[in-house]
């Protein structure tokens, strides 16, 4: 009796299930991932821009040489590029190892 009731309840709960194959859902997941990645890259770029401006201002105020400011700019650009592309690079390297 309990088993029959359980089966009926299971069947009822399974009416909540989405279709077994749902391409639209897959597309939504991929789209969301792209959106998140884009947001992350924009945030990194903005952050790098702010850091570069602040670093330049500090270097200029402290009377730093052109080489120092150029070096700081390069370092900021390097860190930003690494933050943006490192995850993709790591995946690509892992993929090549397979």
């Amino acid at each position, binding site marked *: 009796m309990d088993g029959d009731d359980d089966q009926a309840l299971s069947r009822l*709960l399974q009416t*909540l299930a*989405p*279709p077994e194959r749902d391409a639209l859902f897959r597309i939504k997941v*991929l789209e969301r991932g792209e959106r998140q990645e884009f947001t992350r890259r924009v945030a990194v770029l903005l952050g790098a821009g702010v850091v570069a401006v602040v670093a330049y201002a500090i270097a200029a105020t402290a009377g730093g040489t052109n080489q120092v400011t150029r070096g700081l700019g390069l370092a900021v650009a390097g860190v930003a590029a690494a933050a943006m592309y490192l995850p993709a690079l790591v995946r690509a390297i*892992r*993929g090549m190892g397979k």
Partner: protein
Amino acid sequence: MTSEDDVALLDAVRGGSERAFNQLIDRHQQAVRLFLRGVASPADAEDAAQETFLAAWTQASTFKGLADVRSWLLSIAWRKAKGMQRGWFRGRRRDTVYHDHAMSITPESSDPADRLALGQALAQLPQDQRAAVMLCLGCGLSHAEAAEVLDMPLGTIKSHVLRGRARLREALGET
């Protein structure tokens, strides 16, 4: 489809294969979304389901192979659902609109009256109980698997399923 296939698939996902990731979604979206539809509002459930698969994509290397891939995905889904549940206003909103949403998410083949009754009955259960019931009765997991997914003691799961089932029957019997 075997759990070995799933592990191989996850291994490929770890290596950056988008094709494998698509297959992983196709294989497990139904179970993950069914579970989430039972424990969260439909809007939150879809968000949490998408976030679950994105987390699987970015954190595939954290899969240790102690559970099967479906259980691993369901445990991520559970953490996402709980995360979305946090926040008083969200919780209040979810509780008040749950029934209306429950009507809109189910397949057209099921009876709308049954859907409404089910939505109302599920909404009466505490979230942990709902999760245990959905896993064991909806997704067909064993008590032990559900305990692993929800990170709860086995006895707690058994108790949640027992009580949740009784409350569901009572609520469905009354409608």
